[in-house]
């Protein structure tokens, strides 16, 4: 397994991602005030190699859903399936996660952090080092490979986290508001860069965000969720062509799509 994977990390852009399905996910959290229904009968399909957004009001269960897709949280009912097979635990070769708080290890350098998933898998030092440096170069941090996280800016840290996600080289990359802590200019730039990297390393991506502009700009499809208990209100196809450009943001289509999503969220929040 590791051997096969090693070859692939070496030659970027070989995989095209796997498909992922959520089937009738219902989830209850045990809290001090009794059971809390977080998700109710959520079903959707993410086609292999597509970029799918997940938006919805705060607390509607996006992060919980993401943890389930990563095999880090088991749903009370229903199942997550990758290539038709039920996910019952972490599958690092299939599914990677980029968290909001970049969760970089403070005692490791940027390069060591990016290498870490390959190290855990037992990949040779030279191979993983090369893969990590390549990724760091791709996110524009070629000069900062030996810096520790506390020596990097917020935007740089998220770049490292993204590089780590791609270096792990899963079929599916789950991102939970990876740019939430950044200012608007930085997040626009990083979004653009993310598309660029994704273009060279095609994967299935599920991207949670609060920014509707970001969702429309990045995604092929946006899943809009209701307020708690989270349900899928609508799947919106983003019909804009690729590659995406900043000019598209000024188009009528962009505005309409963004407005449609906002309308749905506004309604569900009002209830």
């Amino acid at each position, binding site marked *: 397994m590791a051997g096969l994977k090693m070859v692939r990390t070496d030659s970027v852009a070989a995989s095209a991602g796997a498909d992922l399905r959520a089937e009738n996910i219902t989830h209850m959290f045990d809290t001090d005030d009794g059971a809390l229904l977080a998700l109710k009968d959520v079903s959707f399909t993410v086609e292999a190699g597509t970029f799918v957004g997940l938006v919805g009001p705060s607390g509607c269960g996006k992060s919980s859903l993401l943890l389930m897709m990563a095999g880090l949280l088991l749903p009370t009912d229903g199942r997550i399936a990758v290539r038709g097979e039920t996910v019952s635990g972490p599958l690092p*070769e299939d599914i990677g996660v980029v968290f909001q708080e970049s969760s970089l*290890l403070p*005692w490791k350098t940027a390069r060591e952090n990016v290498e870490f998933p390959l190290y*855990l898998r037992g990949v040779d030092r030279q191979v993983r080092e090369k893969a990590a440096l390549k990724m760091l170069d791709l996110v524009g941090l070629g000069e900062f490979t030996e810096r520790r996280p506390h020596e990097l800016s917020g935007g740089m840290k998220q770049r490292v986290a993204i590089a780590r996600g791609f270096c792990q080289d899963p079929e599916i990359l789950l991102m939970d508001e990876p740019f939430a802590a950044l200012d608007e200019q930085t997040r626009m730039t990083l979004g653009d860069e993310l598309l660029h990297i994704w273009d060279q390393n095609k994967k299935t991506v599920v991207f949670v965000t609060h920014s509707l502009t970001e969702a429309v700009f990045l995604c092929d499809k946006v899943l809009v969720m209701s307020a708690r208990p989270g349900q899928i209100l609508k799947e919106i196809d983003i019909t804009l062509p690729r590659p995406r450009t900043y000019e598209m943001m000024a188009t009528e289509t962009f505005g309409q799509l963004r407005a449609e999503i906002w309308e749905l969220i506004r309604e569900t929040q009002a209830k």
Partner: protein
Amino acid sequence: MSMRTAGGNDDRSGWILLLKNPLVLRLACLGMILAFWEIAPRMGWVSPVMLAPLSATVISGVTDFGVFARNLGVTFGSLALALLIALGGGGAVGLLLGSVRPLRTTLLPIMSSIYAVPLVVVYPVFTAWAGIGVESKVLFGGLYGFFPMLLATAAGVRTVDGGYMVAARSMGATRFQMIRHIMLPAALPSIMSGVRIGSAMTAIGVVVAEMMAATAGIGFLITQNRTMFNTAEVYFGVFLVVVLAGTIDWAVSVIERRAGSSYPRKVRTL
């Protein structure tokens, strides 16, 4: 008098500058203490039974060099074994108690209570079990340092950021990799403070055990000479205990520096 006022201005500021140098100041203080040590008993300011002059202390150390060296060796040997119990055992148990929730909630409070007990009171029990040879002081010293090491390690491991653990799990870390690459490095600052306190406590435990009941070692030598009113020998023994403590302190600093070299300062001082 007149000379000083005439040409002494430069001289004096030179002196003041010299005294402002912390190293010079420290050496000056030390010199004064040593001088007092020598002069006070000789002038009869304190009874020679209470304080032997510095020269007599040094002479006793030189003449009985063999005896002191042998006993210092015994103490160092016992200390090494006791440290193994304290740091190794305390660290391992701390890791276990800190990371396994049911153990933590049941056993950890008990451990902190035991830590509060002055363990000296149970030393007679130790000698009853293990005799007054090396075993009992190794056990006693080890036990003395065991609890602070355990508690510091457990506290460090317990407060590891859950986010790191979740991320590592998603990247496929095994349980062992999780301990080795997340828990230990994250808990390192706390573990190192455990090492510092734990080894100091262990040294105290070993020397105290030797003083209470033993057949060899620096502590034993101090007690024996005290009962015979060999004040100079007592002071030389005390001097060797200071050397012992200094050695430990230095060793811990070396470990700290090496272990912490890959650690950002921000996190280390957390």
